């Protein structure tokens, strides 16, 4: 019968939670890629129609406000995992 001392069990759980928080932080890459794509499209759009500049800026601002939130979800989980709240 295999048994662990309490320190070994605790350190296994701590290692697992640190590795998992690192994995959760990978999700922050996605919004970066998407926002970069939107910014590239906005520059070409402004070149094509300089008079629609205000409309383009408002559209892009709204899109970026909504698209940044999945990164924050992963941060919340990572901090839950690190601190065990």
């Amino acid at each position: 019968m295999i048994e662990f001392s309490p320190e070994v069990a605790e350190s296994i759980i701590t290692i697992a939670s640190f590795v998992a928080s690192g994995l959760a932080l990978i999700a922050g890459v996605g919004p970066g890629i998407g926002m970069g794509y939107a910014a590239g499209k906005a520059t070409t759009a402004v070149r094509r129609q300089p008079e629609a500049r205000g409309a383009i800026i408002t559209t892009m601002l709204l899109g970026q406000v909504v698209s940044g939130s999945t990164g924050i979800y992963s941060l919340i989980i990572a901090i839950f995992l690190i601190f065990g709240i």
Partner: protein
Amino acid sequence: MKEIKDPKKLQKKILKTTYLIALLPIISAIAAGDMESLLGFVFGLVVATLLLRLKYNNIIRALNMDMESAEKFIRNRYFAEYGLYFLVLFTAARNPSLNFLAAAVGLFMIKFTVLLLSVKDLLKDTFQSQFDRYK
């Protein structure tokens, strides 16, 4: 919301509506005497406001670049923003006088407001078209 074409006016409208909606949790936290949640929520809301302004300034700067450098610029700025979010949530988790979940909800308030305003616009459009059909 969708009629506003000036970005500064749009920011003002979004922030005003956000603070109006945020009054409800703030008043209820005061009534319940939960100062930790109140402080955490206000902290998250203030940081979200500042990051909205930062995002606007970044977009204005990116529009004068060519396509590839704008992509790179906004991507790098997003990662800087991600680091700021991490610092804010880390502070809220470490500091005993700030509630972590309240700070997270405060960070999301602007997004909730934008989605709420768009749902309001959609409902208005739907009712308007139905009304026009029966007129």
